[in-house]
């Protein structure tokens, strides 16, 4: 059902764990599927210096968390915000159609973590632009 890339990230997840003194934390859950994802970020000079994840969920959810954290690590916060679930799925060389909604969680958890970081620092939270929620695929 899953390709080799997905299985690699699933079996050897990158950036798994927590950050004790995180600058932002985002937790999202999808009760329909039973996936819950928590993202911790450490930001300095507007760069995602470190990122860790914890995931309860299926193979697609775990692999998406791993891939998404790898894709935003070392990137400017705005660039991390713009990471789409489609880009994550593409980087994983595709997910089965019924599993695309699991990869949306990674995008949503990153957004929550970034806005947590922004509010903690007295900044306005960014608005979700929509169009990339579960319902669109």
């Amino acid at each position, binding site marked *: 059902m*899953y390709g080799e890339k997905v*299985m690699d990230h*699933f*079996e050897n*997840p990158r950036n*798994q764990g927590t950050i004790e003194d995180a600058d932002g934390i985002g*937790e999202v859950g999808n*009760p*329909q*599927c*039973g*996936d*819950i*994802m*928590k993202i911790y970020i450490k930001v300095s000079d507007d760069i995602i210096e470190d990122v860790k994840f*914890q*995931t*309860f*969920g*299926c*193979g*697609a*959810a*775990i692999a998406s968390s791993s891939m998404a954290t790898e894709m935003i690590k070392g990137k400017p916060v705005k660039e991390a915000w713009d990471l789409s679930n489609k880009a994550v799925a593409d980087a994983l060389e595709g997910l089965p159609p*019924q599993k695309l909604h*699991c990869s949306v969680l990674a995008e949503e958890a990153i957004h929550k973590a970034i806005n947590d970081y922004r509010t903690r620092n007295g900044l306005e939270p960014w608005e979700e632009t929509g169009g990339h929620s579960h319902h669109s695929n």
Partner: protein
Amino acid sequence: MTGDNRFIYMDNAATTPARKEVVEAMLPYMSENFGNPSSLYGIAKKSAEAVDNARAQVASAIGASPKEIYFTSGGTEADNWAIKGAAFANRDKGNHIITSQVEHHAVLHTTEWLEKQGFEVTYLPVDKYGMVSPEDVREAITDRTILVTIMMANNEIGTIMPIAEIGKIAREMGVLFHTDAVQAAGHIQVDVNELNIDMLSISGHKFRGPKGTGVLYIGKMAKIDPLMHGGAQERHRRAGTENVPGIVGIGKALELAVAEMDSESKRIAGLRDILIQKILEIPKTHLNGHPEMRLPNNVNVVFEYIEGESILLMLNRRAICASTGSACSSKSLDPSHVLMACGLPPEIIHGSLRLTIGHDTTEDDIDYVVENVRGVVQKLRNMSPLTPPELRE
């Protein structure tokens, strides 16, 4: 045992490999003995005799008479035929059917379809072990009830239903009783007369017979309409040229399974008990299904804080085949209706694992499975945001 191409198959409730004796018995009926049992010449007679022989094998395995055995294309067809056939044949008597919330979809999707045709269906609840109460059956019967259909043993959690009691109640109240014995036949003793069963479904591939083969037992008292219309096969009740090799296969497989049942079920139940005991040593792990009234081959547990599809994927990487009730592994994204009916919350159901033991399972396999399940559960718990600190490593 875990050499390069070997894998440990722990999904024997899904299907089993056909045994050697069965394949050998079937082979001649694909080529040299290819005759149509309905024809009159010599090789056709051989086919007809083979079908008769299989009918006698099945009849004796369940305490029926050969006249009461009808071959079908599998468990699904047998369930559909029994339920739709009884519903339409007894429409003048009533339109009410009683079943349970934990039946296989072959039953539930059939009764749901009948609801659209104007029938009324009661879906009885189960207790936390997945057991239907016979008294609930009695109370649900009205003067409009034409059929009770309750499975003999559950395919997910292995719970064996109080079929003798339910059969007795249905018989006393004059209502037809069908049971889906797909997981029971060949694994536990089945006697249609002792259990007051009017109709009973069997599937060949669950006891080392061929896939696409099944049986519906129809007792003399049961009046039901055909599902398949066409030729005069199966005494005008199930049309279609007989699947002669398949029929030979299911007959042989059931005969052998029943002959070996005492020793084989004892051995398999012994492995099951070791497996359950060792897996329950993992903290925050619970057994699903009944602790005693349970199929010999079935182990079903839930691990808190983790999800079933990822458990299966990791086990698969370790050459272990298993199954789960998690929503994320199903195409429908619905968590198991059986575990829901047992009262488990969805987040717990997501962490369910079913391991079903078979003829080829050894004690070494059990040790290997336990060791790997333990490791996989820990690996996933370390990854999960839900795991409490004391369970992390």
